[in-house]
């Protein structure tokens, strides 16, 4: 590296998002990779450009939006909130009321996406501001319990407003992601069909993926800017010592309300996107497990950091799929010979009489693949918290510092 890249001579340079040349170059390359992924140009990453992986990447991107929101609330402002699923549900149902189809039993106004997507965020933010005063009244882990209560109250409400949510276990359809000007027949830009965009042939999953990449870039920029300006510093003050912050002039009520509002905006948009991406959702889907997933994402990724939230969401969404592929590969191995095959035979159980820790058939001993995912997920939380409290971001810091100081060990 030429010169001294960490010598900053102006405030702007110090607070910049990409302060050094290395970071600028790497970010450019990374964005180029992310955008051209569906075209499968880069060797080594071609498998990610296939449709089935683009769907998973799309889901990870939506989770990244939600995780960035929770990161602002829990990582930056220090308010422990297990109620993220509730705000996502509020956003999702606002989106479906404004954008969904009107039928005999369901409410929907059929408005275009540029209305329902921001509205989902705004309504969720308003609900977040209503919840915020309780965060001032109760602190710390008491707030965690209050937000758990919020999720259950929300679950009850969603299950009972049948003309909005469709009723328990039934659910309803969400409006698809597409651009219309105002309720026309033919969408201006549609993500539903395979077809050419600017001359390049893309599948519908690729189009949705690119749209989500754009959204994540916008939200990550917003998160980074919140973190490095006055608002972020106020949040950090509230997180570290809220009474001292109040004494210093950081109005506790105002900033906690703002933290909830911003976080719920992100959550509302993420909820609307999630429901629209999957097409339909039952009201029981906005449950405590979804909230815990987001807490796990920001803790695994690294609380308080933008990159951590995004890395965590990719990790948490892709690991189950990788485990599934691993199980499939192992079940192919059971037919062979050798030590690897006997290990595979021990771990997998293929029928009711075969012993195994993981079962590939519906009956018989062993965890199902879904249960294995859950156990792995819990194990990930436990392992990351015990061994690397700073999460994946901490792992990255260790790797980077090792190479920065190489060949010196410290």
């Amino acid at each position, binding site marked *: 590296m030429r010169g001294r890249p960490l010598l900053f001579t102006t405030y702007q340079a110090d607070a910049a998002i990409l302060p050094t040349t290395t970071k600028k170059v790497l970010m450019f390359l990374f964005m180029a990779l992310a955008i051209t992924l569906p075209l499968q140009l880069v060797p080594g990453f071609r498998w990610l450009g296939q449709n089935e992986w683009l769907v998973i990447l799309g889901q990870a991107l939506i989770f990244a939006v939600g995780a960035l929101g929770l990161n602002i609330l829990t990582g930056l402002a220090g308010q*422990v909130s297990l109620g993220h699923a509730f705000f996502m549900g509020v956003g999702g149902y606002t989106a479906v009321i404004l954008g969904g189809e009107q039928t005999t039993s369901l409410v929907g106004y059929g408005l275009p996406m540029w209305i329902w997507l921001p509205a989902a965020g705004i309504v969720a933010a308003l609900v977040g501001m209503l919840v915020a005063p*309780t965060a001032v*009244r*109760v*602190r*710390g*882990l*008491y707030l*965690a*319990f*209050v937000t*758990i*209560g*919020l999720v*259950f*109250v929300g679950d*009850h*409400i969603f*299950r*009972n407003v049948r003309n909005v949510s469709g009723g328990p276990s039934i659910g309803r359809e969400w409006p698809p992601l597409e651009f219309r000007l105002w309720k026309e027949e033919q969408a201006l830009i549609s993500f539903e069909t395979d077809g050419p965009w600017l001359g390049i042939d893309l599948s519908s999953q690729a189009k949705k993926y690119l749209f989500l990449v754009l959204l994540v870039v916008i939200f990550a920029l917003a998160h980074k800017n919140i973190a490095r300006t006055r608002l972020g510093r106020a949040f950090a003050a509230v997180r570290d*010592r809220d*009474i*001292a912050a109040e*004494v210093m002039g950081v109005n506790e009520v105002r900033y906690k309300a703002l933290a909830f509002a911003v976080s719920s905006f992100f959550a509302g948009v993420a909820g609307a996107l999630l429901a629209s991406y999957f097409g339909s959702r039952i009201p029981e889907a906005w449950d*405590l497990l979804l909230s*815990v997933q987001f*807490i*796990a994402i920001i*803790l695994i990724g690294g609380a308080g950091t933008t990159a951590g939230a995004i890395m965590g969401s990719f990790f948490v969404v892709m690991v189950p799929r990788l485990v599934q592929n691993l199980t499939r590969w192992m079940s192919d191995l059971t037919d062979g010979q050798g030590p690897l095959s006997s290990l595979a035979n021990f771990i997998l159980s293929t029928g009711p009489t075969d012993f195994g820790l993981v079962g590939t058939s519906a009956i018989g001993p*062993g*965890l*199902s693949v879904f*249960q294995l995912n*859950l*156990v792995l*997920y*819990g*194990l*990930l*939380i*436990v392992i990351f*918290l*015990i061994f690397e*409290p700073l999460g994946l971001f901490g792992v990255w810091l260790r790797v980077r510092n090792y190479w920065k100081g190489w060949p010196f060990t410290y």
Partner: protein
Amino acid sequence: MNPGEVVAQTTTFTPIEQFLNALINGVALGAVYALLALGFVIIFKATQVVNFAHGALAAVGAFLVASFATVLNIPGRFMPSAPAWLRWSLSAVCALGAAALVGLLVERVFIRPMVGEPLFSVAIITIGADIIIRTINDDFVGQGARSLGDPWGINVVQLGNLRINQTQLVTVGVSIICFLLVAWFFRSRLGVAMRATAFDQEAAQAQGINVGRIFAIAWAIGATLAAVAGIFSSLAPRANGVSNTTAFVVFRAFPAVIIGGLDSVIGAVVAGFLVGIAEIVIATYTSSYANVVGVGFGSVVPYLLMLIFLLFRPYGLFGTQEIRRV
């Protein structure tokens, strides 16, 4: 009328009887909540850990009783001539011992490595532990409900127009015994050591108390109480056995913990009964207004109570006010 006969409810209640019926059901449910809240508060007071895995421990306890009483038949296979309730009770006691061991295991594996870490991280680790334990337990329990093999089943005691399930009487009786045992424990030497640890860990250590052992005992007691609560929440009339949803009863007991105060043992018991009675009574009286408050409003009542209580008393009824210094 024979005790085992199931008679369709054709009589309607007078208002007093309706209230008494709701009250009795509420007390039985409140006993379950009080047991869960008590176990939770003991763990919190002694080890400062918010244990989100309490539901999983309850489900594991219920499953252990189901195994000991039906499949393994220990110690029933050694005394085939003893009455059914004695055999089942001894099986349950053995299963409670096993549940205490599970609690010890959870403490050693998940909590011990996190000594010195911030409490938020430890709470999240208990969430991870909850997922792991609950999933493995669900795998053992399987789909559907696994009967606990209790000798009371759906038998009822008839008092005029009121029908009290025998299991409800056993629930209240056993929970009172448990509370008395816990009260006696806190007067014993070990209990005083635990109270000292809860008050100030460092000072207790300076006095020569083995704090690590106190942690283990606190978790064992907490897991045992959770197991007892798990047993009684899996019996009729609430459920017909331990299933995948047994663990979720603990989420309705968390409001009882908060209302009573996170660090108050008396508060946990009082608030547990309060929440249970309120839930059933309000559910009974709003069942005809389902189009306003929704179906199943009873299960939301604990949370609404918690939210209302927290507005007026943020530290619960009996919790210690937090004095915060800058």
